[in-house]
C-alpha cells in the first residue's frame, strides 16, 4: 500500500472515461476498463459504476507529454501510465500515455493489462516486488490477457485495505483476515467440501478447488492456501484432474479437453495439448480424475464410471480399456472427483467422502471425511 495507507472510505465508487485513444474503438476501451475493475471487484466488497458527466472518484484519461499534473509522459515506450492513490480531486485518477500503441491483444501495449495495474493504484495498492503480481511495476508482454489472474500478493494487498467480498476490515465485529479468502473461497474444514483435483508434488500434496489450492506437507499440520495463479499464472482455475509423474518431475493438470504440464513453478512449453493426444476417443470430453502408479509406471484416468490405463513406458493407452471402475476398484463409488497415491494406497475422493484403497488387496480399507488431511 502507499505510505499512510490511503484507501477509499466507501465501497461504491464511480469512474469516468474522460477521453479515448484513437488506437482502439471506444467499446474496446470501455470493455478493457470494465474488465480491469472487475478483477478487483471480484476479491473485495468494492463495486463500480460508470458516469459520463461530472465528478467521478476515478477519472481515466489518455494524454501525451505534459498533461497538467507535473508528471509528463515521455513518448513511446518506457512509461505507459500512472495513477494516483485514493483521495479527492486528481487522487484516484489513472492516466495512460497515448504515445503508446494501445491494443486489445499483445501486439502493442495491451490496455487491459496496464489498466488493471493502474486501477490497482487508484484503489490504494503500491508496487509489488513480486514478479508474479499484477502490481509489479514492469510491463510483461508475455502475459496472456485472457488468462490474467490476480496473484496471492495482489489479493492479500487489496484485501488488507478492503477485506474480502463479504467482510470489510472496517466492520468492528470482524477483524481483518491475515490470509485472504477470495470470492466464494472454500474453507478447509467445511464438512461439505469437495475437491476438483488432487496431485502430489515433490513429496507434498496439492488439493485443488476452484481458483485455489491447499498445499499439504507431511511435515506440517497446517496446509498452506494459495491461488493457483500465484504459482502458475498460465494454468486455468477449476481443474478437472491432476497427477504427478515423479520420474519426469512433472505435474500434469487437466481441464476440459486440454492438459498442461508444470515442473515446479515452471509451465512447460508446448502445452496445453489435447487429451486426445493421449489416446482417448473423441467421445471423451474431459477427465474426472487421474493418478500415476509410481511403481508400475501406469497412469489411471477416470471418466464417469470407467477408467483408462496409460503405459508410461510405451507412452500409449493400454488395450482392453476402458473398464468399469467398480470391477477393478470395488468399494469405490461409481464416479470420482479426484485421486492420488500415498503410502501405497490410492485415495479416491467423491463429494465429501474419501476411500482409502489398497491396490494389492483390491479393497477399500477405510472410508474417511475427505478433508482429514487437514486435521479438521
Amino acid at each position, binding site marked *: 500500500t*502507499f*505510505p499512510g495507507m490511503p484507501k477509499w472510505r466507501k465501497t461504491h465508487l464511480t469512474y469516468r472515461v474522460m477521453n479515448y485513444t484513437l488506437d482502439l474503438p471506444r467499446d474496446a476501451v470501455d470493455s478493457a476498463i470494465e474488465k480491469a475493475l472487475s478483477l478487483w471487484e471480484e476479491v473485495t466488497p468494492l463495486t463500480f459504476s460508470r458516469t459520463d458527466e461530472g465528478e467521478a472518484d476515478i477519472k481515466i484519461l489518455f494524454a501525451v507529454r505534459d498533461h497538467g499534473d507535473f*508528471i509528463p*509522459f515521455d513518448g513511446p*515506450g*518506457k*512509461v*505507459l*501510465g*500512472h*495513477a*494516483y*492513490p485514493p483521495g479527492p480531486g486528481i487522487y484516484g485518477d489513472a492516466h495512460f*500515455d497515448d504515445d*503508446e500503441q494501445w491494443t486489445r491483444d499483445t501486439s502493442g*501495449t495491451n490496455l487491459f493489462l*496496464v489498466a488493471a*495495474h*493502474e486501477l490497482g*493504484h487508484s484503489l490504494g495498492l*503500491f*508496487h509489488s*516486488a513480486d*514478479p508474479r503480481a499484477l502490481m509489479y*511495476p*514492469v*510491463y510483461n*508482454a508475455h502475459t496472456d490477457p485472457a488468462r490474467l489472474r490476480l496473484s496471492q500478493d495482489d489479493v492479500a494487498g487489496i484485501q488488507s485495505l478492503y477485506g474480502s467480498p463479504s467482510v470489510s476490515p472496517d466492520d468492528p465485529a470482524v477483524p481483518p483476515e491475515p490470509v485472504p479468502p477470495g470470492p466464494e473461497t472454500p474453507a478447509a474444514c467445511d464438512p461439505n467440501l469437495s475437491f476438483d483435483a488432487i496431485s502430489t508434488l515433490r513429496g507434498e500434496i496439492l488439493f485443488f478447488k476452484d481458483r485455489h489450492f491447499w498445499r499439504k506437507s507431511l511435515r506440517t499440520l497446517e496446509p498452506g492456501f494459495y491461488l493457483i495463479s500465484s504459482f502458475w499464472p498460465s494454468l486455468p482455475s477449476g481443474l478437472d484432474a491432476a497427477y504427478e509423474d515423479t520420474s519426469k518431475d512433472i505435474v500434469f493438470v487437466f481441464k476440459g479437453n486440454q492438459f498442461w504440464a508444470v515442473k515446479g513453478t515452471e509451465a512447460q512449453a508446448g502445452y496445453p495439448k489435447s487429451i486426445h493426444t493421449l489416446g482417448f476417443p473423441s467421445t471423451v470430453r474431459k477427465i474426472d480424475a487421474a493418478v500415476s502408479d509410481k511403481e508400475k509406471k501406469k497412469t489411471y484416468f477416470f471418466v464417469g464410471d470407467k477408467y483408462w490405463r496409460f503405459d508410461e513406458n510405451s507412452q500409449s493407452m493400454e488395450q482392453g480399456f476402458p473398464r468399469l471402475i467398480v470391477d477393478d476398484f470395488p468399494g469405490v463409488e461409481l464416479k470420482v472427483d479426484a485421486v492420488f497415491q500415498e503410502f501405497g494406497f490410492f485415495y479416491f475422493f467423491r463429494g465429501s467422502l474419501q476411500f482409502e484403497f489398497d491396490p494389492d488387496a483390491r479393497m477399500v480399507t477405510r472410508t474417511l471425511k475427505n478433508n482429514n488431511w487437514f486435521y479438521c
Partner: protein
Amino acid sequence: YPLNGAARKEGSTTDFVQQYLERYYNLAKDTKAFVRRRDGGPVVDKLREMQKFLGLEVTGKLDSDTLDMMHKPRCGVPDVGDFA
C-alpha cells in the same frame, strides 16, 4: 559535447540511469552518478535497492540484466518512497 561517440553513449546511459533512479528510487537529485567511492555511494545503494526490488541479482553494478530491465516499459509510479 564530446566528439567521441562511445563517450557520448556512455554519458547518455549515465544520465538515463541517474534519471531512472531519481524517478523511481528516490535518488537525491544532486547526487553525482558513478563517482568512485570506497563505500559505493548513493547511486550504488540505489542500484542495489532497484535490483532487489525487481528481483534481479543484487550486484550494485550496471550489468546488462539491470540495464535491460530499466529499458522495459513500466508504470510511471515510483517503486519506493513517497508518491508526490
